[in-house]
């Protein structure tokens, strides 16, 4: 059970990240106090009785007093939005307004009461954000619902319009894209033999549903390919920043230990621009493992970018044939400095430190390997 929890931890972490995102991305930010107050009930029109032009009832232009910043400093009077028409002075439009606290330096800007040329700024028409109860919108007048469904059908015929109407839908929102992203294509130089790896992914589809594939492979310059992994996933956008992904993963190893896994993962963007890819894998042998990757781009200049990258591998059980022990099996931490000749083409240099833990480390040590390794890397990040 603990192992299962360990394997699922990355998923839970990631899920936490995205639910936090769904709630309050500012948690923990110290921002200026105090709490914002909201009128609980619609503010009564303080101009009742005035001869203001009658916009729709609930639209007191003064609600909330959010007066726009008059861009030249407000030299005129601050009755923005009163929209008092140039009525011959029948009623004193200021009756009832307590203006005693107005800056005394101001001459009476209302002399003559001709307010027709006042331009004090727009009224603050309340919206849903001002109405926590969200009063329903005014109903549609019945006549607005009259036919025909499509006016142009009357002129050109429904048949002639049908194809262009489909094209209109396609051309206004239904954008399909295919991307290929070469995250890391690199060579590593450490104490022992020189290694190389690729880490590539790509997707095809619209904004919500995508086919997503990922491939990783690594090997030594002398020993050749060590292992290859290929994932084929269905990816669905769940929240603005997160996709849930499900599918299969096939591992190919020269030593014959090929395995197939079911994959369930989350990929997206965590607050503070961390790109996160977290997935759990259930193999056909019943082994449950998980992997979390996170990377961040620190722009030093517009083109020179330092990228910290973290990867954690976890397992719910010992898998001796793969030299994996239960619990946290390994951690990789890298720092890569790339130069974007174009956004799509960025060679890099960097260092990567990796360490195996627990039984995983024991397996490696047992065959004479080092559980900890630091290597210098040179590679290319590219996409198209």
């Amino acid at each position, binding site marked *: 059970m603990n192992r299962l929890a360990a394997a699922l931890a990355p998923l839970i972490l990631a899920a936490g990240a995205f639910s936090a995102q769904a709630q309050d991305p500012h948690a923990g930010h110290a921002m*200026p106090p105090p709490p914002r107050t909201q009128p609980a009930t619609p*503010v009564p029109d303080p101009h009742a009785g005035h001869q203001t032009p009658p916009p729709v009832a609930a639209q007191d232009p003064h609600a909330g007093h959010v007066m726009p910043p008059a861009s030249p400093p407000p030299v005129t009077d601050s009755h923005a939005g009163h929209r008092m028409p140039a009525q011959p002075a029948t009623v004193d439009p200021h009756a009832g307004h307590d203006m005693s606290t107005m800056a005394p330096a101001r001459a009476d800007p209302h002399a003559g009461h001709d307010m027709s040329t006042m331009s004090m700024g727009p009224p603050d028409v309340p919206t849903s954000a001002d109405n926590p109860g969200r009063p329903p919108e005014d109903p549609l007048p019945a006549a607005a619902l009259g036919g025909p469904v499509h006016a142009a059908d009357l002129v050109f015929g429904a048949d002639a319009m049908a194809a262009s109407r489909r094209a209109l839908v396609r051309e206004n929102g239904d954008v399909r894209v295919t991307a290929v992203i070469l995250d890391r294509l690199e060579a590593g130089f450490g104490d022992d033999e020189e290694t190389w790896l690729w880490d590539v992914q790509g997707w095809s589809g619209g904004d919500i549903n995508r086919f997503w594939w990922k491939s990783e492979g690594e090997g030594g310059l002398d020993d050749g390919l060590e292992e290859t992994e290929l994932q084929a996933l269905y990816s669905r956008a769940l929240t603005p920043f997160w996709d849930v992904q499900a599918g299969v993963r096939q591992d190919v190893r020269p030593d014959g230990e090929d395995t197939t896994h079911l994959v369930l993962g989350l990929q997206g963007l965590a607050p503070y621009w961390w790109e996160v890819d977290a997935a759990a894998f259930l193999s056909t042998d019943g082994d449950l493992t998980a992997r979390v990757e996170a990377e961040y781009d*620190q722009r030093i200049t517009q083109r020179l970018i330092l990228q910290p990258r973290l990867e954690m591998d976890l397992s719910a059980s010992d898998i001796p044939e793969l030299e994996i022990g239960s619990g946290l099996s390994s951690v990789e931490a890298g720092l890569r400095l790339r130069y974007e000749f174009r956004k799509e083409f960025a060679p890099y240099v960097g260092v990567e430190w990796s360490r195996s833990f627990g039984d995983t480390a024991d397996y490696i040590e047992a065959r004479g390997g080092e559980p900890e390794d630091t290597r210098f890397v040179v590679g290319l990040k590219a996409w198209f």
Partner: protein
Amino acid sequence: MSTPRLDRRMLLRGAVGGGGLLGLQGLLPAWAQTGSPGLRADLPTLTGPNIDLTVGHSAFTVGGRTGHAVTMNGVLPAPLLRLREGQNVRLSVTNNLDEDTSIHWHGLLVPFQMDGVPGISFPGIKARETFVYEFPIKQSGTFWYHSHSNLQEAMGHYGPIVIDPAGPDPIGYDREHVLVLSDWSFMHPHEILAKLKKSPGYFNQQRTTLSGLLSGEDRMSLEERRMWGGMRMDPRDVLDVNGSTYTYLINGHGPEENWTGLFRPGERVRLRIINASAMSIFNIRIPGLPMTVVQADGENVRPVEVDEFQISVAETYDVIVQPTGDRAWTIVSEAIDRSGMGRATLAPRPGMTAEVPPLREVPNLTMRDMGMDHGGMGGMDHGAMAGMDHGVPAADAAPTHDMAGMNMRDPGNAPPDMAVGVGVDMVSMDPANRLGERPIGLTDVDHRVLVYTDLVSLQPNKDQRPPSRTMEIHLTGNMERFMWGFDGRKFSELVEPIRFERDERVRVTLVNDTMMAHPIHLHGHFFELVTGGPAGHQPLKHTVNVAPGSKVTFDLTADAPGDWAFHCHMLMHMHAGMFNVVTVRPMDGAPS
């Protein structure tokens, strides 16, 4: 009543008067050629009751490089259409492309079936077919026309329209020039969109950096950066596509080609400025020369003298300038993220130039652009306001704000029918009406800047009934996935149209739940911006720029029966889903 018909005549009559000129000039209509004396009756513009236009492929050269353009009558911009109020016009449009095309007459009040939006107004113009548009001209002013098919507009398919009033023009001027502003990329617009889908910050070469933090050049503290990072928003995302790929054109000329319009010192020169860009908002200024704004979106306004104004995509402004002296003046159209500029010259003689000012600093977005009504109240003193007893509790008059505990994406701040899903990365929690505020990047310039509340219609509004109904429409998006929509839905999700009863008067409030500006355009109608200005003189617009995180209210008399497009005029936003159909019923002849 017109129907599409096949017509294979080659229709270049009077179109390419400048076609015989050399090189660069070859692709420009005469009025757009450099050294233009201005618009004159004897210039080869297209005029009269019958006008022929042919849409086709052309090579377009700017800055020494040649690319592929989609043009009308082989020129970029397209020929000037000069019409007169009260006339009828028949426009025969022949499609020489291998795909459908269309022309929308932007700002012209035409019967819906002549409005030129395939799938709404008509079926579109198929390859090698001709469609005849025919309608009466019921207005005057500066307008434009462009394709409404498949991003062709971003490839050069646009041109100006000038309609002379039937009677005397209330605007006095000695000479006029048309300035068509646009953005040209050698990258195909579909490629641009694909880049944005894969990497929304792709074109931004002005992001905040560590070196900018250390040197202070970014003008942003670590704390502010952390806040933006926490929101996963980029405070430098001012224009999605910008000068890193665009060459900004004025009348088809890049900055190097320097389009030049002539004047005699002392003349009142009317500049008819049209933003025909796909994705670019500009700040316009002529250093040293004040401009008097006399018309916006083809509707006359009370003259306002300014030194700079912002023109969003698809807007038009007419200004009067009075250049004096034997010197040249530089017209600057600076992209609002300061990633590039268009440049042209007004001069007494061809070949004269004036100093070209350098690009200014890229603006940083603020919390106000995130729909939070914080600070930045432009000197409005809440304390003093609270003293004015308007019958509202003082606490409400001076709302205070607290970031802790705020929810940037609270469905409670959205209308009940809005879909707060993947396509919505934020819901403005306190959208401010920013019509009276200087637009982004111009808040601190030390000269006069036009704000929307400066616009006052010259003529009284025709319909002064109070609105009988209100409507709230949210402009929504997901920056990270480059998704855009209304009320959380892309048009491709088969949304309900926005319905009006014919002749009803509705007060519509647009709430921008994104940190980008959206020029929202309604076809077939002009709406009145509710600016709080003189009663009965609300300015009429066909396109309004809704500032980031803000709200805009307009009054609409839905007097044009039929179906109409309603969309963001940022072409990539529209193509990504910020589009809907407006229906006005009943139709003519239907029982009401």
